[in-house]
């Protein structure tokens, strides 16, 4: 109760409310811009929060994330271009509803479904996180080590591209995270004698490079312009449609939340899970693909419920639920806040504060989102190269602001090139980023703590019950998925013979 009252005191000040409002607006704009994803929006705006107190900074970032997750549905519905990957499923039904002459209903239904999904996700976050904390108190460093491996394997499994490439990326990310001074003995690891590498690779420029600069390098030369459907027909706040499908909305919201809880997954997967669930349970499956309200509700409620879900493992276990919370974890560490099981026991107001920030952000977007959709659409119909040119400058200033070093800008560009290569060659970026976030603080630290606690023996890694279960899941998944990759490649090879040039 004390934590809740503290959170109320922090949240409901004019400054906090203003930052949340601005965060939501910036998030909606970023999410609506094609080519600028939720994670990129958060990465670009993260440096703006450096001068804020940690609580206010995290609340603003949560608001940006909530706004951007919703914002992607606006361009998905009106342009048939998902503003974020999480809105890809929304584009199928949302744009079809728009073409049926109900553009306002399409935008409004996205907002109302997102609102309900978000609220249900927030309620589940407040009720389930304390239970996760109780479970996490049973975790020792061995379990944290295996749980982070589990998160990396799940992330590699569910990312686009082959699993083998995903897991290679994850391991490579962990190795990158180990660059710099060893936190226990101060030995230099992989620094090549460079002073700039003693602190390791700064996470923020690397993230901006992987997601932001790689997108710029990929899209800067594209000379296309989006075609906007007029915002006519239908109603801006179709609550009755959501009420009619209330059971579906609750079910997909719970599903979306559960997807968010699984480390390394995210709103992208949640929206497809929600969409598929809506389609499989629908009495009118023939309407899917040609303007189904159920499909739109399924994807939007699920992807917005996923956002609070991704904070549950972050706050309870310090393992991020998705890419954005991976960035939030990086931000928390920069601000000197270390999440984990004891964190919420000592500072319970963080859980309620994040929940309240999301709730306020949700209320704000459902009011301003549909009403201002016309304004947002005017902003996002600039030609892609124009958008990308401006995004490039934001990438530079964002990565410079992280550490006030030109070196960080070079790191950002290098990771931009790496991200571009990975995009073009089927290597998913998410596992690499998750590996970098977990590598030093979680994997390395917990492994060595476990060795110290177990008297330098590795046996407890394989004999403690929870460790054994997690280890078995990790090994089985890796072996099965690599085998599946091989079988898929063999199938492609036998069905498509080589045609020499």
């Amino acid at each position, binding site marked *: 109760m004390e934590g809740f009252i503290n959170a109320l005191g922090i949240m409901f000040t004019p400054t906090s409310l203003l930052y949340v409002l601005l965060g939501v607006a910036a998030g909606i704009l970023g999410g609506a811009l094609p080519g600028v994803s939720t994670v990129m929006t958060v990465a670009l705006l993260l440096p703006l929060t450096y001068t804020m107190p940690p609580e206010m900074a995290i609340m603003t970032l949560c608001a940006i994330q909530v706004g951007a997750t919703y914002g992607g549905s606006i361009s998905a519905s009106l342009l048939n271009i998902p503003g974020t990957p999480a809105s890809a499923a929304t584009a199928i039904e949302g744009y079809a509803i728009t073409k049926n002459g109900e553009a306002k209903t399409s935008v409004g239904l996205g907002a109302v479904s997102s609102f309900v999904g978000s609220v249900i996700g927030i309620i589940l976050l407040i009720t389930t996180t304390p239970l996760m904390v109780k479970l996490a108190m049973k975790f020792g460093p061995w379990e944290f080590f295996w749980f982070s491996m589990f998160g990396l394997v799940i992330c590699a499994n569910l990312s686009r591209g082959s699993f083998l490439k995903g897991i290679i990326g994850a*391991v490579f990310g962990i190795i990158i995270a180990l660059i710099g001074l060893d936190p226990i003995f101060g030995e230099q690891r992989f620094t090549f004698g460079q002073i700039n590498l003693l602190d390791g690779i700064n996470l923020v420029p690397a993230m901006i490079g992987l997601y932001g600069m790689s997108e710029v390098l990929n899209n800067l030369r594209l000379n296309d312009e989006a075609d906007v459907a007029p915002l006519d027909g239908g109603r801006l706040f179709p609550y009755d449609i959501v009420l009619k499908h209330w059971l579906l909305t609750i079910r997909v919201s719970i599903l979306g939340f559960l997807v968010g809880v699984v480390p390394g997954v995210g709103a992208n997967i949640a929206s497809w899970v929600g969409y598929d669930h809506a389609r499989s349970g629908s009495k009118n499956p023939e309407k899917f693909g040609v303007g189904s309200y159920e499909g739109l509700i399924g994807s939007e409620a699920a992807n917005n419920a996923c956002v609070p879900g991704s904070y549950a493992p972050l706050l309870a276990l310090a393992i991020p639920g998705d890419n954005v919370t991976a960035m939030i974890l990086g931000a928390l560490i920069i601000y000197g806040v270390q999440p984990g099981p004891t964190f919420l026991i000592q500072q319970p107001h963080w859980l309620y504060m994040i929940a309240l920030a999301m709730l306020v952000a949700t209320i704000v977007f459902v009011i301003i989102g549909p009403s201002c959709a016309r304004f947002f659409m005017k902003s996002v119909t600039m030609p892609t*190269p124009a958008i990308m040119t401006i995004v490039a400058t934001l990438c530079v200033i964002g990565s410079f602001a992280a550490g006030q070093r030109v070196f960080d800008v070079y790191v950002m560009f290098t990771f931009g090139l790496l991200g571009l290569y990975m995009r073009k060659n089927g290597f998913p970026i998410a596992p690499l980023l998750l590996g970098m976030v977990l590598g030093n603080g979680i994997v390395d630290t917990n492994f060595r703590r476990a060795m110290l606690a177990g008297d330098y023996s590795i046996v407890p890694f394989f004999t403690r019950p929870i460790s054994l279960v997690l280890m078995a899941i990790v090994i089985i998944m890796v072996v099965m998925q690599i085998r599946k990759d091989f079988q898929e490649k063999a199938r492609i090879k036998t069905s498509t013979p080589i045609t020499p040039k």
Partner: protein
Amino acid sequence: MKRLTKDCIEALVLIAISIYVIIASLQLPIHDNWGVSPGLVPLIFGIALLLLSLVYLQASLKHQGKQPPVAISKYFQALSDIKSPQFLNMFTILFVLVYILLLPVFGFFPTTGVFVLVGMWFFARQVSKLSGIIAAIGTVAGIYLIFVVLFKMVIRF
């Protein structure tokens, strides 16, 4: 006959990186005990990367499918054609790289203004010259207002 495809080259590069990581990890001092030495975790993941890269190499040799062999001469030939995708890709990368390298020379705001202007004029052909100038001034002014005035950040490259 096995061909040197792109996947093979990727696998070989990853193998080289993993071998470096393993060797560098073994050269780190042990301190109290191997169990807490700074080289142990990098060694474990270096070995993991090596094993995964070997699996990747084996997969790329076994299932070469439609992948053509790497033809570096053809790539450089394509680069000489200014309308080819390879040339445009390289130009985009060099354009952004030059912008970043010139930041410490001319300062952030002048370099950014010129970058946005040239970027708009060259890449966004639909945008008029006047719109490009307004966008460049607006971007620089917006960054100055938000980062320097509002958030009191010092931007000195």
